């Protein structure tokens, strides 16, 4: 009994130590993200003004307007708070679209193999190679600048890396005994794919999702900077665009162009930290399992 106790305690200690070691990035990332999430959800209560209300322009930071006002007198701090909504929204949705497509493609490709696999992977490779930003610029230039078009454009080009990763995982999984057992019991392909394989790919998918959100937010910021964003939305990228094109840069209004950039960085960082931390955790688990 005590031997079992000892071994259990040793393993628990090991797990706890490794869990604690690996989790600092995840914890920080999660904290940051929750902060932004709260900002987004409770924006109307947190923001001191209605960010759409025009007022006296180019005011310096003061007690009333901690970050001053922009070129049409809107309170920058309020814009920043509301901007969380759009930026997170675009990030999540674009990531969702791209990961959803990628997962479907990866699932079918990996499970069905053969001709379907060749075709889908060929398509994936081809799209993977196309330089994303230039193509997004072309698509955005041709379509009207609204938030959904941007989401679709990002989603349409980014599913490829998810597809590949999901496919590798599916290839691994489909050889496993529980799948064979299910097949032996007479389960249909669709059932196996969605009931057995998909849940086991979730880890891989969530890792990709997290990074996709980060990337989508950065891309939206880039497109807005180029003037291809939705000019009517208060995203951080659009704030930067106006700050730079309406004299914020040369007049030295750092309270206008620094905060949105910092927010983008921190928001992206939160996702990147989580993704990175989870990856480290995975590796640690893999290592401890090797021993």
């Amino acid at each position, binding site marked *: 009994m005590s031997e079992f106790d000892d071994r259990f305690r040793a393993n628990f200690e090991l797990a706890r130590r490794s869990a604690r070691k690996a989790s600092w990035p995840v914890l920080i990332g999660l904290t940051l993200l929750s902060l932004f999430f709260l900002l987004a959800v409770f924006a109307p209560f947190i923001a001191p003004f209605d960010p759409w209300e025009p007022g006296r322009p180019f005011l310096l930071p003061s007690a009333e307007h901690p970050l001053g006002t922009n070129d049409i007198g809107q309170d920058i701090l309020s814009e920043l708070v509301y901007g969380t909504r759009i930026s997170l929204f675009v990030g999540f949705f674009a990531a969702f679209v791209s990961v959803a497509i990628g997962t479907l493609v990866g699932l079918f490709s990996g499970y069905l193999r053969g001709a379907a696999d060749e075709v889908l992977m060929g398509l994936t490779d081809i799209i993977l190679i196309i330089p994303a*930003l230039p193509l997004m610029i072309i698509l955005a230039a*041709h379509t009207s600048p609204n938030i959904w078009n941007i989401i679709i454009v990002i989603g349409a080009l980014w599913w490829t890396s998810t597809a590949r990763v999901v496919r590798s995982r599916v290839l691994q999984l489909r050889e496993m005994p529980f799948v064979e057992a299910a097949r032996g019991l007479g389960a249909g392909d669709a059932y196996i794919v969605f009931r057995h394989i998909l849940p086991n790919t979730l880890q891989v998918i969530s890792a990709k999702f997290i990074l996709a959100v980060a990337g989508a937010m950065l891309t939206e910021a880039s497109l807005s900077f180029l*003037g291809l964003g939705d000019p009517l939305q208060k995203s951080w990228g659009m704030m930067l665009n106006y700050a730079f094109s309406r004299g914020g840069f040369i007049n030295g209004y750092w309270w206008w162009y620094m905060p949105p950039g910092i927010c*983008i960085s921190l928001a992206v960082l939160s996702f990147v930290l989580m993704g990175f931390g989870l990856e480290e955790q995975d590796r640690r688990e893999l290592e401890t399992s090797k021993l």
Partner: protein
Amino acid sequence: MTERTGYLARQALRYAISLFIIVTLIFLIPRMMPGDPFISLLGEEVYYRSPDLVEQLKTQYGLDQPLSEQYLSYLHNLMQGNLGYSFHYSQPVWDVISYKMKWTIVLLIPSVILGAILGIVMGSLAGWQRGSGMDAWITSLFLFIYSMPHYWLAMLFVLIFAFYLGLFPLSGITAGGLEGVQKLRDVLWHMALPVFVLTLFGATYNFFIMRSSVVQVSGEGFVLTARAKGLAEREILFRHVLRNALLPLVTVIALDFGFMVSGALLVEIVFSWGGMGTLVYDAVLARDYPLLHGSFLVIACCVLAANFLADVLYAVLDPRIRGGNAA
């Protein structure tokens, strides 16, 4: 040998198909977009001003022909190197692009190389000492840089180093009126900031890949053996770990090209560097579609070429693809 050539041939075929699809996409996109495809093809400057000109050009461009015929003449033109005419620049698209492309390459090559070196060095240090304080610091730094929008950081650099401190020029490729060595030094001086920014971003990308590569390799059996044999840490790192970890990185450097092109686009705009980035941006602003499409085709070709190069390198270096011999 045959396995390698077989592999390369397959990859070449893949790229050829990619190129074909990209070419077709460029043909289809303007014709599929809502609105008059003619605007998309000519750019609006011409379109909304003069209806006679529009009619004249429609026949010239063969837009009254059936789609298949248009496609064939489009391909025909491409093969002759005719990318169309830019109304914005009053020059053939190819002339404009070839001039600007070289300046982007001038920026990209040192950035890719320096970024790779920086990423490799930092990545292997961090990966080798994983879990230590140094790893934490370096990794955090790179994580933070990775999260920043490229152009925002570039803007800050311009503001701080070029405007307030006056250490570097504000914009452009060179000041006027210089020749020879003086011009070279001037160009280098103008290049310094943009290359620095691009290097930083390239380095972050490589850093993470190198780090995880090193971490993965150092967990493998032969490292344990080497340690057991009593080899010094440094020897293990260089002789064994790096050699194996370097392989994926070699391909990544070539792939970096594709990634860097997007980064370079934005950085060029901030630094007013007269390369493809500013060209694409101006083409978008002016909605000069022939120029925009032409630029995209050229960029896509370069990226494809870089990828193919990566495959060739991979085939040459990876022992597993050699004919028959095991690692």
